[in-house]
Each structure stands twice: as structure tokens, then as C-alpha cells.
């Protein structure tokens, strides 16, 4: 494991600070509220949210930075994972809903459904939910990637159809007939694994889980990019035709990386939902997917740690600005897109690297 982080200063820093946060933040949180070092619980949840988004950024960096596919639809995988987790949390509500129906969720009672739809079966089991969190995005990514890569759709066309995919999913999820809460999505969660989502301990546990997931996700991505297959991945990005003529099955490699990345995004979504407390079709909106790109671009493409760093920083800025200066936020975000592409194609990681070499 240590070998993976050889020559990866940024990665060492990232994992180091995550480990530090896992140890330090529970301690700081336990301090009395009066203490100036006290770390409030709502900040813990907020930080946990950023970490899940960093995991999403990681998955996007893998396909964009290393594989060269500019995906405009990764939020779809994120949202699917989130929905799978949301379904489990909905089932956990049991008969504590407004209509006190042990079998059906509130929105189903409201729509006058008599029984649980088939695709909700099994979601009362945590392991089924976790399985689905990975499986559903993976299946979609596989089907989509299998078709697209085999017929060699690439570049801009691929980007546009990934966008069409997430847009189509968004429209579909808005429908009540879809059986997933329609417009309102899934919300009013109570418990996870029997622990109340309102309790500070659960929130802390979710934060730690997010941090651990990010560390594992990072190591997995690093493992892939450092492996021999990872070299081929980069070769595909830089010269697809040449790699194909050298005898590599470009489609298969692309497909597996894409599917893995989708699973990672699904996992991120699953950790995101219990901390945010709601999932609705808006998460599928094309804007969300594109926003992830700016995190990765600002942090630095094809560095992994840069993507995670960019996600955390920009989301922090977003939380701050949307509260303090809501008018300015879109100007900043838009400006960042333009600035990074024009002036800073390597992102912040590139800036750091340049400093290191000087």
C-alpha cells in the first residue's frame, strides 16, 4: 500500500490529512461548546458531504483525466447510488411516516398504491441496498459504455450523449409513475442501521465512513493508474488509434474503467444521502455533472488528489458564497471555468508541481 504512494506527494498529503481528520475531529467535537477549538456537529456533516463529493470528483478524474472521456453525465451514477441508499432509508422509516403505513412509504400511500412495487423489494436489507448502490450504476455504465465504446463514439459526441443520458434520467425520475417519489424525491429519513440519523454519533460515524471511503477510493484509483493497465489507459487517452493497433482491446479497457468509476460515484452518492437527508431528481441535472468537472479542472486533472482537493475547496467556497453573497456564486463558478481553461490548464496541482520543480 505504501508503494502505491511512492512519488505521490499530493496523495500522501491527502491521505495523511484525512487520517488526521478521522482522529482529530471526533476529539474536537467532543470538547465543550464553549471551547474555541470546539468543532460543531453541523460542520462535521458538512465536511462529510464534501468528502463524498471528493469521491465523486475522484471517479470523474479517473475517466476524464486518465481515460480522456469528458463525461457530462457522471452525476447520474452518483444519483443512482444515492437513490438506492435513499430507498433503504425510506424502508427504515417503517410505520413512522405521516400515514403510519408499515409497508408503504408516504408518497406511495399518497399515490394510492396498494402494494410495494417489485423494484422496492429487498431494500429493507442493508446489504441489498449496498449491493444495489454499486450494481445499478455499474449496470447502467456497462450498458452505456458497451454500446458507445464498441461503436467508437468518442470526443464531443460521447460527451453530448452522456449529457443526454443524465437529462433523460432526470426527466424520468421526475415522473411519479417511476415509483421513486417523483418531484419530491425521497426524504424524511429516520434511521440508518437502527441508529437515528439525528444523533451526533451517527453523524460522526457517517463522516468517518466518508473519509475512509475516500481513502479506499483513492488507493483503488491509484492502484489502477499505477498498474500496467493504467499505463494503457493513459495511452488510450493520448493516442487511441495507436494503442488499438498495438493490439490492446481499447473498448474493453475503457469499459472496465468506466464501470469502476460509475461504481465509485454510486458509493459517493450512497454516503451523500444520509448526510444531506434528501435525494431528488435534481441531482441528475446536467449542471451537476458539469460542476464536477470544474472541481477536477481547478484541482488538476489526472492527479487524483487534485480532484479531491478541488472538490473540497470549491464546495467550501460554494457553501460560503451561496450564503454570504448568493449573487456572486455563479459569477465565480463561471469565471473559474473560463479562468482554469484559459490560464491554468493543469489546475492547482499543476501550480504546485511547477513550484516544486523550480
Amino acid at each position, binding site marked *: 500500500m505504501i508503494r502505491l504512494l511512492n512519488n505521490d506527494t499530493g496523495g500522501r498529503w491527502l491521505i495523511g490529512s484525512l487520517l488526521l481528520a478521522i482522529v482529530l475531529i471526533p476529539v474536537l467535537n467532543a470538547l465543550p461548546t464553549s471551547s474555541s477549538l470546539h468543532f460543531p456537529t453541523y460542520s462535521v456533516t458538512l465536511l462529510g458531504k464534501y468528502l463524498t463529493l471528493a469521491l465523486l470528483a475522484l471517479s470523474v478524474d479517473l475517466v476524464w483525466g486518465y481515460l480522456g472521456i*469528458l463525461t457530462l453525465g457522471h452525476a447520474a451514477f452518483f444519483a443512482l447510488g444515492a437513490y438506492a441508499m435513499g430507498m433503504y432509508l425510506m424502508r427504515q422509516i417503517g410505520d413512522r411516516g405521516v400515514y403510519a403505513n408499515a409497508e408503504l412509504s408516504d408518497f406511495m400511500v399518497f399515490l394510492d398504491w396498494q402494494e410495494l412495487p417489485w423494484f422496492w423489494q429487498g431494500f429493507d436489507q442493508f446489504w441489498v441496498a449496498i449491493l444495489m448502490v454499486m450494481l445499478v450504476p455499474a449496470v447502467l455504465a456497462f450498458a*452505456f459504455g458497451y*454500446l*458507445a465504446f*464498441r*461503436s*467508437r*463514439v468518442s*470526443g*464531443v*459526441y460521447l*460527451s*453530448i*450523449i452522456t*449529457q*443526454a*443520458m443524465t*437529462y*433523460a434520467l432526470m*426527466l*424520468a425520475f*421526475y*415522473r411519479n409513475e417511476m415509483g421513486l417519489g417523483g418531484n419530491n424525491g425521497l426524504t424524511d429519513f429516520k434511521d440508518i442501521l437502527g441508529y437515528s440519523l439525528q444523533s451526533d454519533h451517527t453523524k460522526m460515524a457517517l463522516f468517518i465512513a466518508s473519509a475512509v471511503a475516500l481513502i479506499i477510493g483513492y488507493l483503488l484509483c491509484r492502484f489502477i493508474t499505477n498498474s500496467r493497465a493504467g499505463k494503457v489507459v493513459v495511452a488510450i487517452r493520448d493516442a487511441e488509434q495507436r494503442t488499438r493497433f498495438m493490439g490492446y482491446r481499447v473498448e474493453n479497457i475503457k469499459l472496465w474503467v468506466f464501470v469502476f468509476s460509475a461504481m465509485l460515484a454510486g458509493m459517493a452518492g450512497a454516503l451523500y444521502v444520509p448526510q444531506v437527508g434528501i435525494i431528488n431528481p435534481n441531482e441528475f441535472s*446536467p*449542471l451537476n455533472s*458539469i460542476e464536477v*468537472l*470544474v472541481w477536477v*479542472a481547478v484541482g488538476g486533472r489526472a492527479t487524483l488528489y487534485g480532484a479531491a482537493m478541488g472538490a473540497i475547496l470549491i464546495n467550501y467556497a460554494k457553501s460560503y458564497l451561496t450564503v454570504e453573497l448568493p*449573487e456572486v*456564486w*455563479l*459569477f465565480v*463558478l*463561471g*469565471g*473559474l*471555468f*473560463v479562468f*482554469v*481553461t*484559459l490560464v491554468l*490548464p493543469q489546475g492547482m496541482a499543476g501550480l504546485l508541481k511547477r513550484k516544486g520543480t523550480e
Partner: protein
Amino acid sequence: MINQWLVNCLSWGLGCLLLVLANLSQAGTFEVVEREQALIKAKFDQKAQIMASWYEADQVQAVHLMQLMLNSQLYYFKQDKRLYQVEDASSGAIAQRIHDGVLITLKKKRDIKRVSINNRLRSVFRQRVVETQLSAIKPQDRLAAAEAIIGDTTPELMATIARLRAQEVDASVLAAFDLVLAVATLHSSDEDQQRHSIRLLGESLYPASLNALTGFLLTYPESRLKPMVSKYVEKIKGKVDFYDSLETIYFGLSLGSVLVLAGIGLAITFGVMGVINMAHGELIMIGAYTTYLVQQLMPDHIGLSLLVAVPAAFLVSGAVGILIERGVIRFLYGRPLETLLATFGISLILQQAVRSIFSPLNRSVETPLWMTGVIDINPLLSLTQSRMYIIVFCLTIFLLLLAVMKRTRLGLQVRAVSQNRDMAKSMGVRSEWIDALTFGLGAGVAGVAGVALSQLTNVGPNMGQAYIIDSFMVVVFGGVGNLWGTLVAGLSLGVANKILEPWAGAVLSKVLVLVFIILFIQKRPRGLFPQRGRDAKG
């Protein structure tokens, strides 16, 4: 449609009425007050008499009042004992005073009382109203009145209709009268007459005649004419289906025209120049806001303002487009994915700019009068004019753009630069200049599309987002770099959407179309009409 028409007629009639009343108000006020109060106080059997004398004195108003009474919309305020028209009698509703048209907000429901009528009065009034309408001066008014009562008559009315038919000169009104009578004679005991009526009704296209014929099948299950009626019913149903599908195609074409309009600017920037312009939707939005501004500047000339807005939107959006090209895109040629990100950033900035300047709320752009209304082809098919204008506008823009690209020097140079930049340069084409102009052209066309869209949807900061994905779909589906492809793709996607809509619902049909395009691109990555030969890129 007929309802719409009636409402129009009524409001027009009301307008005339007010004008007349304004003139009369000095002279006849006393008389009017007296008549109104007589009507309010009268018992049922007196009301007919009062209205009859009112009819003598002021036919237009009397008919209007009788219609209101038939629709249970005539009320009086207990306080002032004057007549009011109230469409929905609940507190907060609007009441319009009959004699001068003043509008009053209703405070409490019990302040007013309805001028009630019984069934006998109902039939008397109805007879009067229909008779007046059927003897209107304009033939089209008579026709509409006759069409409205097909299958909806009383025995008392039949005599009147027979009498009026004898005086009628207009052929189409005569035909309508015949149908009115035919519905009645359908039930006569004379089989020849019945057969005649069935033939008449069977050849007509009114929904009412279809109802009358199916009613016949139910009332006389043993009739010998049953096969004949069934045949006609089938025939009419077939025609109904045919015209329904025509209407679907018409709706589809108008939706498709919107798609083409939204996409055609992109066909220039993306298709010809290869620039992925994610801010395209926002250029449409700027065009729509320009329309709004122009309309604010000339509030008295709504119709004219729309015509002024077309060049204005072209210039404004085009200028913004040139700014974007000079400021950002020209540094990113050859890096399509970076262009995508940068222009997306620009789209966010433009959105927020509009939100800051105009507020995040939607702005409403008024539709000029000449764009509203319907064209009645026959009783089963009537086409809304606004959709017709959109289709015509879309085709005009398309042909203009095609002419610019194929017939002008600019078009020639644009194509030259897009096919072989270096060669074009060495032939003396100022390629940078051409890039800026081409992008400006595409952006300007997006702005013009915004003018059209401002007539269809709300003008708001988010409107661009709604069209960007559709626009890309249209261009990619049609084949990049091919204007004809964009036209065919847009129109066919629009029609497909409308055909799917009845059984899949609006949202699902959109999803299905998107999925179809995703699958289609797998099969033919270069779209319907791919570029071929040496010009083809990638």
C-alpha cells in the same frame, strides 16, 4: 375552438355594447334603471314580457342579458339593485356592472343574488337568443350560430329554423341549417326522410353529427337502416382519425420548428466551426430578453415591436457572440473539450448577469393580436395561427441562412476556412475575422430564435438551459456541418415527440426520443447526413 370563438364573440359584443351604452347613457339612464329594477322584482311569468319589451328597445343588450341568464351569470347587488355579470359567484370574484361595464370586486357572496329563471323562461330565452344569432347580418356569424345548435335543438326551435332556412341565401349556412334539421328528421317515421338525413349527416364532419348517428344506433337497434348508419359512422370515425393525425403532425412540425430554430445557430457554430458552444442557450435567452426590452420601449405597438425585435436580437446576440469568440474561444481552437468547459462557464455568467439585471423572475412578452386565432380548415381540423407563424418563421430563417452560406462571399469564406484553414489563409482569407463573423452569425441566429421562443415560453434566466440539450441533439442527430440535416432532424424529432405523446405522456415521450438518439448515435456516430469525402473531419 368554438367555445373560444364564442367567448371572443361575446367579449366583442360586450365591447360594442359598452360603446353604444356610453352614447346612450345620458339620454336613457332613467329608462335603463327602471327596466333593470323591473326585471329584478318581476315574477317568472312577468320576466318574459319584460325581456320582450327590452328586446324591442335594445336588441343587443337584451340578447346579452338572456344569454347571461341562461348561463346563470346574471346577478344583482342587493344594495344598489343594479344588474351585474358574475362568472363565478364567490367572495373575491369580479362583478361587471351591465349598464356601464364598471368592474367591482365582490366582498361577500351574500351581497348579490342571482336573477333566476325557470325552464319555461329558459326555452323562451333560448329561442330568442338563437333566433337573433341565426339572423345575424354577417354570414359567418350565422354559420357559427347554426353550427353550435346541431344536435342541440328543441321542437319549438325547429319551426324557427325551418322559417329562417327559407330566407337563407348563403350556401354554407344553408348546409348547416340542413344538418340541424337532419338531426331532427333522423327520428321521423318516414324512412326515406331518415335515409336522406343519415346521408346528409354522414357526409358532414361535425362531431355533433357523429353523436347523432351513434345515438341513432342506440335508439333504434332494430332499424333496417342500421348497416347504412354503421357504414357512415365508420367513415366519419376514419376521417376523425385522419384529421387527428394531421393535427398531430402539425403540432409536431411546430414543435420541430422550435427545435430547428433553437438548433440552427448551433449548426453554424458547432457544425461548421466545430466549436462546442454551451452558452448557445444563453444567446437564445439574450434574444428573448431583447424582445422584452424592445416591447418595453414601444408598449403601444406590440405587433411592430416583434418585427423590430428580430434584427435587434440578431445584433445583440451576435455582438455578445463575437465578444465571446474574441475573448475566450479563439484561444481554445483545436481543444474542443476545453471550449466546452469555458463556454459553459460563460453560460453561467450570462445567466447570473441576467438574473442580477432583470431579477430572477420570469418576464412575460406579449403576443401581438395578429398572431393569435385559429384557421378553420373544416369542423374537425383547425390550425392555431401562432404555430403556423412559428413554422413559417423557422423556414424563412433556415432558407436565409442557407442562402448566406451558399450564395454569399461570407458563406464561401466560412466554408473555406472550416474545410482547410491553411489553404484558405494562403488564398487571402482573413481567417480570424471569418471565425469571429461566423460565430457572430451563429449567435445572432440564436438570438432570433429567442424572439420566436419568447412568444411560446416564459422569458427567464433559465430558459436557455431548457434548449441547450435539445439543440445539441438536433444538430448531432442531423449530422454535424449540414444545415439540411438540422432541418430534417428537428422536424422529425418534433413529429416523433408529438406522435409518442398521446400514449406515453409528454415527459416519457421526451425520454424515449432522447434514448432513441443515444442509440442512434451508436449506430451512426456522424448523424443522419454525415459529411463525406475529404471535408469530413475526424
